[in-house]
């Protein structure tokens, strides 16, 4: 490990007022174009153009600011946000925080996508439809699925769409009333439990065996004539690859169920292993994770949903097709679940990811996965060498693929410093705070790091050095960790219970003003 000099970091701290506090009556930030005089004359007083009952008498009480102040305010807020492109964001395990290339933003702003209406005649949208089609071809090859939908706007949205397709499949076979149960594992992403539940299914969530994933026997015991299917990820959020996955699939298939593969963690399997060979009926990719598009503070993303032939007829409408000379939209799909989102999905994200995959290409896509697993295994080794308190529960001795769920329990017992203290302290060194785990915390005092291919050796070394430093502080000066952060855009909340209290919570300024009794 190279010597690391810890950053003397300080995040921007503007102490920025809420925008309503900056309002001065009469100020204007933007003047909309007025209609020409002839239009005004012809139309007359706008008040006469709305039914009396529906006329808004006074305009909405939005803030009134000059343009510079609006710009400065939002630049301040931007500076108080630690985006992945700015920092060493190994932190957000399971989220695959890649570099989001600038060129892709330039391309997404091109009027050939930014100024397209989704209902334009397809003859005038051949370029974007070609991108839909070609990107779909690439995903089919990477996953082995037969057809994709690029409508869902995020991973959970794709998972929901898969549940909707599963529902349609069983309904068509006259078995939906009976087949209401979905099998999943505890270390699968929560949306694989919540989205099928939203679609009307009941969940059977299997606990991990000592391997970190459910046993074949547990899956056998869970299936029955009530089984609708399985929603599962692999590697699970622990980074452990389930080597028995195809047996799971076979058991569910034999019971008459369908299998959906949540590929949120696909970054380490590109060109290595595919959903098809494991027997899955459906899978998805989080394009904003694995395929390099921005997370946008949590969307818009793109959840590309792939299915095998027997489920293709259920995909949302329209699909993008090619007749040999022309691309077109196919709405004539009577078995489709219909729409899960308006229009044709997040097309701007599609343009970005098309550019990403075209520059990664055949030569480097597998390299993405190889470097991701090398980065992870290096990081884990160094962390465990440097910080003896860190444990990695389950499947001892087995290498994780792209991430690991670490455990700080020993440090908590020795020092009283918890993982939520450490993660806040991480922010003081210019790193995004790290991801613990989804709930419930099966692994106590968890930490999940994912050093994907966007990070260099020096980033990995820096991360280890920061955690080692905080671990040392936990013994020498635990209060500095417990009261962290000290150098971030803001501080620890005074009282988190306020956010669960109807008398004190407020998601809008108007509610806050009312509850605080201030103007």
């Amino acid at each position, binding site marked *: 490990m190279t010597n690391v000099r810890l950053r003397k970091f300080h995040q921007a701290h503007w102490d920025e007022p*809420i925008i309503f506090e900056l309002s001065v009556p009469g100020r204007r930030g933007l003047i909309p174009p007025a209609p020409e005089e002839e239009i005004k004359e012809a139309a007359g007083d706008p008040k006469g153009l709305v039914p009396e009952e529906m006329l808004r008498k006074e305009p909405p009480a939005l803030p009134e600011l000059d343009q510079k102040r609006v710009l400065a305010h939002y630049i301040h807020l931007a500076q108080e946000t630690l985006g992945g492109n700015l920092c060493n964001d190994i932190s957000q395990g399971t989220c695959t925080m890649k570099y989001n290339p600038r060129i892709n933003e330039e391309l997404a702003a091109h009027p050939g996508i930014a100024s397209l*209406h989704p*209902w334009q005649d397809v003859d005038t949208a051949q370029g974007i439809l070609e991108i839909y089609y070609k990107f779909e071809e690439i995903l089919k090859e990477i996953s082995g699925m037969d057809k994709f939908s690029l409508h869902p706007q995020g991973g959970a949205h794709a998972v929901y769409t898969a549940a909707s397709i599963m529902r349609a499949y069983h309904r068509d076979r006259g078995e939906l009333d009976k087949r209401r149960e979905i099998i999943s594992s505890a270390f699968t992403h929560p949306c694989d439990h919540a989205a099928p539940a939203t679609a009307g299914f009941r969940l059977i969530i299997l606990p991990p065996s000592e391997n970190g994933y459910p046993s074949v026997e547990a899956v056998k015991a869970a299936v029955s004539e009530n089984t609708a299917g399985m929603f599962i990820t692999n590697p699970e959020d622990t980074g452990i690859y389930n080597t028995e996955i195809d047996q799971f699939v076979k058991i569910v298939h034999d019971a008459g169920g369908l299998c959906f593969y949540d590929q949120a963690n696909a970054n380490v399997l590109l060109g290595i292993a595919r959903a098809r060979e494991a027997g899955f009926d459906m899978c998805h990719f989080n394009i904003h994770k694995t395929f390099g598009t921005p997370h946008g503070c949590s969307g818009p993303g793109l959840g590309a949903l792939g299915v095998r032939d027997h489920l293709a007829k259920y995909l949302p409408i329209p699909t993008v097709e090619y007749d040999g000379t022309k691309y077109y939209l196919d709405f004539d799909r009577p078995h489709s679940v219909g729409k899960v989102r308006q229009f044709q999905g997040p097309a701007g994200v599609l343009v970005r990811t098309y550019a990403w995959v075209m520059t990664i290409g055949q030569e480097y896509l597998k390299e993405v996965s190889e470097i991701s697993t090398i980065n992870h295994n290096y990081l884990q080794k160094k962390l465990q060498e440097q910080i003896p308190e860190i444990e990695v529960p389950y499947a001892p001795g087995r*290498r994780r693929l792209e991430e690991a769920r670490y455990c700080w329990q020993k440090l908590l017992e020795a020092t009283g410093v918890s993982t939520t203290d450490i993660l806040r302290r991480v922010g003081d060194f210019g790193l995004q705070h790290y991801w613990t785990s989804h709930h419930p915390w099966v692994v106590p005092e968890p930490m999940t790091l994912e050093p994907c291919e966007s990070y260099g050796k020096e980033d990995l070394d820096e991360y280890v050095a920061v955690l080692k430093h905080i671990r040392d502080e936990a013994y020498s000066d635990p209060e500095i960790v417990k009261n962290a952060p000290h150098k971030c855009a803001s501080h620890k909340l*005074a009282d988190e219970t306020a956010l669960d209290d109807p008398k004190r919570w407020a998601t809008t300024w108007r509610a806050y003003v009312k509850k605080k009794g201030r103007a």
Partner: protein
Amino acid sequence: MEEKEKRVAHPYIPNSVPEIKEELLKEIGIESTEDIFGQIPEHLRLRRPLNIPKAILSEYELKKHVTELLSKNKNCEEYKNYLGGGCWQHYVPAVCKTIMERDEFLSAYVGEAFADHGKFQAQFEYASCIGELVDMDMVNTPTYDWAMACATTVRMASRMTGRSKALVAKSISPERLSCIKDYACSATPDIELVNYDPKSGLLDLNDLKDKLSEDVCVLYMENPNFFGVIEKDGQEIADLLHSKGALLSVGVDPISLGVLKPPARYGADFACGDVQPLGIPMSYGGGLGGFIATPDEPKFVAEYPSLLFGITETIEEGEYGFGEVLYERTSYASRDKAKDFLGTMAQLHGIVAGVYMALMGPQGMKELGEGLLQRAVYAVRKLSSVKGIKAPYFNSYHFKEFTVNFDDTGKTVADINKALLDHKIFGGKDLSKDFPELGQSALFCITEVHSKKDIDELTEALASVLGK
């Protein structure tokens, strides 16, 4: 012997420098990644190169390649566009573009408020501005789009009332109706449509009365409706629903709320809509984000599936802090026991919509809304001067959009729109499939990007196409 060609390090993959890769393998104590991937059973491995295009490594050539594809499209700067219907061509202010492109917002994700303070504050301000537009105190962080927003209000209403029948106005967007049918069906398997009056396009109150019963949880309607018609009987509709213990959810175009009364003031329990018109580029329908607003009462708040960003205080005197309100509701906390599900949705679009509303302020929203009302009236007058055209189809007040009927021209909307392409015009949305009862009708949208000259030229082009 010729030296083996050295592999170029990819600009996005710092450790793809061959020497670094070797060094890391050595540090790990393995020969190759096969020592890791070897645990994957052989029959699950892909043992051939992926058949996908070769890498375009130079940024210049990549840009050229993608730009060439995008240039095959005819965009709405080259053509005059009269399509709307939930994705509208409004002016996107420069400041909105600047903030949307900031790497801090663009590349942030789920960080907490101490390091992502600005993200939380920007979202809070977005919700606060939407709250002013709709005159409600509780607003969510955006969901995928308006369709998911309105479908979510149906699910929320079902849980709140314990009822499983929903009424939906037939005059809403067919795409949103399709989403409601898919998304809400496990909560409200019984979804019945409420007709519109064939002359006025307004919600048919008699039909509503006929279909309203004590097992109805909600009516979802839109105002202006899909045909651009401004509903006028909001209060009566709300009273009818409430008298049966049902709720009212109203979908709105937020850009109308500088001049139109917000649904809360005529008794609506939910307001929802799309942020796209508020400074987000259309992007072939990619620029969407759905908002939901309700009263700030626990019975509503407890049923939101969305993240709700709340304002509070930090340990530092006088400093605002932010966090998540009632986090236990969400699927991040409670998995299958949560209220529906949550995921990566449309937060960046929410932030940009917040910038837009702050730029526009009360006067901007009012002036824009007034101009949209006036332009629609002018456009209707001009278009109806063409022989055979009936505009608007419905005898009502309209906002921004209106239906144009071509039955008396002897031509179909499809043919007319094809012919308009020669005039570099995207004609209105063809309604003949979704609303056959309207004959050959199209939905036209006029926004502030259309000048008098544009409208006059549209009229001339239609006259020419129709041979009048």
